[in-house]
């Protein structure tokens, strides 16, 4: 007889026994030893029919192809830029991916992106050894001037963005602050200082909040109340 030892959506820790029996199948973050399926990392157990997987709740960002991230120029090389990515791996932006303009060999690359500059960029390739290639060709990809950058738990990025961007749009609309959310856990904000503070507070609230249900309404109320205080 196969038996589930932990309920769906429970928090599980490494080594914890999740299920016994051959009817269940181990997927991401779990492993089988004989009859037992155990957790191979901390997270939320997701039971999908007979498949058991773990949704991580913590951990650093690891670059993935197709992700839109915020990077910071850490070095300028002969034919491109090196960027730090809030991950263990730096990314490389080659000249041909940097702008739609033609950049002549030997020209001063800091005219385009200088040391310390932030950009929104897209990952086009990650090799097995974690060499990361990025591009600036694509909608919304650009240099970010001024403003501030905050760091959030990367695992919370999807809920900060919300379904079809609904959560972040709500914050933008309420505060008038420009916001760019990178999948690497960096968020750039730029606007009026008071409003920026409110937007940051709202994001921190989403990050901390456990339950997704009713979150949109909670944040909406929070923003309405905060804005009332300001106009008072």
């Amino acid at each position, binding site marked *: 007889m196969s038996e589930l030892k932990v309920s769906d959506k429970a928090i599980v820790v490494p080594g914890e026994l999740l299920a016994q029996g051959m009817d269940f199948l181990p997927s991401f973050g779990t492993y089988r030893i004989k009859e037992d399926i155990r957790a191979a990392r901390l997270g939320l157990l997701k039971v999908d029919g007979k498949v058991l997987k773990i949704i991580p709740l913590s951990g650093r960002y690891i670059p993935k192809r197709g992700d839109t991230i915020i990077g910071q120029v850490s070095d300028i090389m002969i034919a491109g830029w090196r960027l730090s990515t809030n991950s263990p791996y730096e990314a490389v932006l080659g000249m041909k991916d940097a702008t739609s303009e033609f950049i002549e060999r030997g020209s001063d690359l800091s005219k385009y992106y200088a040391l310390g500059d*932030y950009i929104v960029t897209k990952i086009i390739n990650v090799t097995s050894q974690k060499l990361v290639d990025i591009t600036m060709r694509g909608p919304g990809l650009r240099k970010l001037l001024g403003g501030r950058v905050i760091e959030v738990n990367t695992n919370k990025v999807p809920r900060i963005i919300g379904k079809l961007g609904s959560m972040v749009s709500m914050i933008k609309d309420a505060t008038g602050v420009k916001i760019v959310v990178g999948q690497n856990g960096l968020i750039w904000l730029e606007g009026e*200082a008071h409003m920026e*503070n409110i937007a940051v507070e709202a994001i921190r609230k989403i990050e901390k909040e456990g339950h997704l249900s009713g979150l949109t309404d909670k944040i909406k109320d929070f923003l309405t109340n905060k804005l009332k205080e300001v106009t008072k």
Partner: protein
Amino acid sequence: MSASLLNDTMQQHLTNALNKGIRFDGRKLDEWRPVKVEYGISKTAEGSARVKIGETEVLAGVKLFISEPYPDMPEDGSLMVGAELLPMASPEFEAGPPDVQSIELARVVDRGIREAKAIDTKKLCIKAGEKVWIVSIDICTVNDDGNLLDASSLAALAALQDAVFPHYDGTELDYRQKTKQKLPLTKLPIAVTVYKIGKNLLVDPSPVEERTFDVRLTVTTTQGGMLCALQKGGDGQLTLDEIKQMVELGLQKSAELRKCLKA
């Protein structure tokens, strides 16, 4: 916002907000985060304390031992202060011998206690010219969320308040047996560091503010408002007027901080 995430346009953005009296974390310029002092956090120390300022956390411990006095001060015990910016506290701290940042921190704390004559060193004398007590304070950072300087100074002071002598029978020192005898602590020197960013003066900086500041001045004062130590830091310069404002602010804030200590 992590301090490494800064560039010039962002520092400008932060300064612009300060010009309007707004800090990134919503505090007023002269407002501290909540301060918490906890005594006796290490039983192996003769005295110890934990200080939290917001999420910044520092531990300090006092160890006492017996040694020969300095030849020029045969009737005085002495003081040693060490500080370690432990790599546990920040991704920016590295393991290894103390760097100049931790040395400055230890020396600023040391000077405050020494120059205020906070410890009556005559009372540390066991036998003139032969045996005196040495008071050593060690500061260990646990979490760096800005303002380690003031947190460390407060923690060192609290650890001194907490300290009692170990048992000593004239020949042997028994660290496992503590007496009830407190250290001869006569004053409470408190350090407040005032930061200047653009034209703005602020206290209790966050890591981003620490990365952006032009000049800072650490003002150490005792009860009654006397100054006992100063330390200017940073690449910028100060006018006399600014120094006056910073000292005033330091005095005012140290009175608030002193209330966090036990009497």
